[in-house]
């Protein structure tokens, strides 16, 4: 069923967007949406995916100044999906539990918006170490 060659359950084709400025935030979310639409995600889900990418890229610009967003299709036994990996070598997050707490971070005032991103997507994984940077991996499966 899958049109692309795959390694494990993850397809090979990948989009990489270097994130260093607010323009890159727009570029990353537009490319992510294009891929989501290409993978036949609904307009609603494509918007959720683009919004999640926008927030993740924004965190990179705000807290690490530079990093990378990688977006690629994935496939498990019965359905396709999309993976977004946002990584940086920035200062890292001191208290991940606190950063994942609602209210600490949403409402667009300050904070990372990570609980919101988790709600937008199906899978959410964060690895962060102080002084070593942060990697957030999120996935969404097609309905």
């Amino acid at each position, binding site marked *: 069923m899958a049109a692309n060659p795959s390694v494990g359950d993850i397809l090979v084709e990948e989009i990489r967007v270097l994130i260093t400025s*607010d*323009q890159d*935030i*727009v570029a990353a*979310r*537009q490319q992510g*949406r294009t891929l989501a639409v290409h993978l036949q995600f609904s*307009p*609603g889900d*494509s*918007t*959720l995916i*683009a*919004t999640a990418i*926008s*927030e993740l890229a*924004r965190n990179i610009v705000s807290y690490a100044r530079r990093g990378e967003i990688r977006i690629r299709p994935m496939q498990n036994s019965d359905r396709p999906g999309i993976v977004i990996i946002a990584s940086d070598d920035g200062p890292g997050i001191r208290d991940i539990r606190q950063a994942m707490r*609602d209210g600490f971070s*949403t*409402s*667009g*005032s300050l904070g990372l*918006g990570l*609980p*919101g*991103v988790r*709600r*937008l997507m199906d899978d959410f994984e964060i690895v962060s170490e102080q002084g070593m940077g942060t990697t957030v991996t999120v996935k969404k499966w097609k309905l």
Partner: protein
Amino acid sequence: MEVPILKQGSFLIATVQAALTDADLLQFRSALIQHVVRSRSQGVILDVTDLDVMDSFASRTIREIAQMIRLRGAETVIVGIQPEVAFAMVQLGLTMEGVETALDLDEGLDFLNLKGKTGTS
């Protein structure tokens, strides 16, 4: 990228495009405020129909715009938030509390007129 601002009577209508960067949004904010001051506008309609993503920054900036304009004694109404954008905003935890919204341009104009601020000069 510049956001076009049209004057209609004592109202201003600004149409926000899809791919605005943070810098574009901030520039738009100051241009719009200046415009409100210069033309002594009584109401502003922010049309975000074409906006594909309303993330935390865009949402905060729009809220700030509405607050600044209110301090000038004018009303702001946001129109055209797309259903999927609204859904994503709610999931993200973004509300537009304290900011008036309406379905589209017509309803936005109705709202401003109802507020007793006439659009015909």
